[in-house]
């Protein structure tokens, strides 16, 4: 018995490991992303949300992580494709009758379809917000806040000429913040019914993807023990399958119905 020569990632298990690790990393990101985006529900004309957006795009460690994130999405998708093609070739002649529902869950068998929906969603999502934000295609805004009382004194849209760079100035206890108004962009985008629909559908896909994916990732790294698996399944179903997708889905709905 000797079989040490083959590199890890050339094997089926190695490829699966990549799926698992990138998947778990994306799950972690989702959680962070959600916490940040909850600022959208603040009734502060986007003050907190826009500050958060600046932090996310400028703080160096976050920048590094964000590149890892883009890479993860791409690698996760590419390996999914590679594995799927291999899986298809493992059964060249299919069954006339197949009763998949009798032995497995629909979502576990259709991770590829769910993933494709998510990929389309991510592309739309990024072009709507990430791309526009990074290419100065969003409006600008200025906030004046009394630091003592925390009361927002004035909110004013800026023109492109008035805005130079993100700035925070404090004078006599009054804070003046000038920023790109991603919040406005969000508000604007979510007035479109088709886009809201896409978001809601995508979040449903996310829910089903993660209900299987989260616990499956643990199985793939070899973590499955009677004593802990229940906990992992619960987190997978409730946190990643219900709470996170529902909160995300509420965001477009909130703006859409807020008008």
């Amino acid at each position: 018995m000797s079989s040490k020569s083959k590199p890890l990632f050339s094997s089926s298990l190695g490829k699966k490991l990549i799926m698992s690790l990138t998947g778990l990393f994306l799950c972690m990101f989702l959680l962070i992303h959600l916490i940040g985006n909850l600022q959208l529900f603040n009734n502060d004309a986007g003050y907190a949300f826009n500050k958060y957006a600046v932090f996310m795009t400028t703080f160096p460690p976050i920048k590094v992580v964000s590149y890892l994130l883009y890479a993860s999405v791409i690698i996760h998708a590419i390996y999914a494709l590679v594995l799927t093609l291999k899986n298809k070739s493992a059964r060249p002649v299919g069954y006339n009758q197949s009763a998949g529902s009798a032995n497995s869950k629909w979502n576990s068998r259709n991770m590829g379809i769910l993933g494709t929906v998510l990929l389309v969603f991510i592309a739309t999502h990024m072009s709507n917000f990430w791309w526009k934000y990074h290419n100065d295609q969003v409006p600008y805004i200025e906030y004046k806040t009394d630091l003592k009382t925390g009361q927002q004194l004035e909110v004013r849209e800026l023109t492109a000429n008035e805005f130079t760079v993100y700035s925070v100035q404090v004078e006599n206890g009054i804070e003046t913040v000038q920023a790109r108004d991603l919040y406005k962009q969000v508000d604007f985008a979510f007035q479109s019914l088709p886009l809201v629909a896409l978001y809601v559908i995508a979040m449903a896909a996310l829910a089903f993807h993660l209900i299987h994916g989260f616990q499956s990732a643990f199985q793939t790294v070899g973590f499955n023990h009677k004593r802990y698996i229940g906990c992992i399944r619960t987190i997978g179903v409730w946190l990643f399958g219900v709470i996170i997708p529902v909160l995300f889905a509420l965001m477009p709905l909130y703006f859409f119905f807020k008008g």
Partner: protein
Amino acid sequence: MNLTLKVWRQKNDKSTGQFVTIQAKDIADDMSFLEMLDIVNDDLTRKGEDPIYFDHDCREGICGMCSLVINGRAHGPNQGTTTCQLHMRSFHDGQTIVIEPWRAAAFPVLKDLAVDRTAFDRIQHAGGYVNINTGGVPDANTIAIPKVIADEAFESATCIGCGACVAACKNASAMLFVSAKVSQFALLPQGQTERYERAQAMVDQMDAEGFGNCTNTGACEAECPVGIKLTNIARLNREYLSAKVLSQRDIHA
């Protein structure tokens, strides 16, 4: 009862096959599924037609020779049952039953419903053993093995090698089969010396045979006639990854 069978007929591994509709008449409840096919075959033979070839041997659910995907289910509709132990009381009069062979690139059809499962043997050749010769072994009671470990190893060791896991998996993955054997030896003290080499060797052979990848759908576990659990697959993943990443053993000379 009377049944309509839609059976996959294929002359040999080179020809293409097709479904043929055959009537099964006067089938009794307490016949096994294979006894029903025996009767159909007797009828075919009397009519001078080629009987349906299917694999079977012990007919008591242990040899793993019988197969058949019956109405889309490996070994038929009942859980924890091989085709030979499936009885006709699970069907009803007038029912149409579609019977297909295991489908996988690694299991080519030989004739009708019989497939070539030697890929499983080759995986076992790669490492499904403890490297010891006959004789010269210590007394059986020299090593005490905790009962819970012995029992868990036994659960993995009961795999009958029928291939239902591959047949049921949408990816035709052999992970449940391979993991059962790797688990048995990974758990027992006897298997420790080659624990990591074994996992790697068997996975390499599994990949070379053209089986698909595990996507943890759990179909294999649900269709396994002897109840091999998904925890085995997790253990195989663990064994393999730890062999590749953490426990890579080498001589540094």
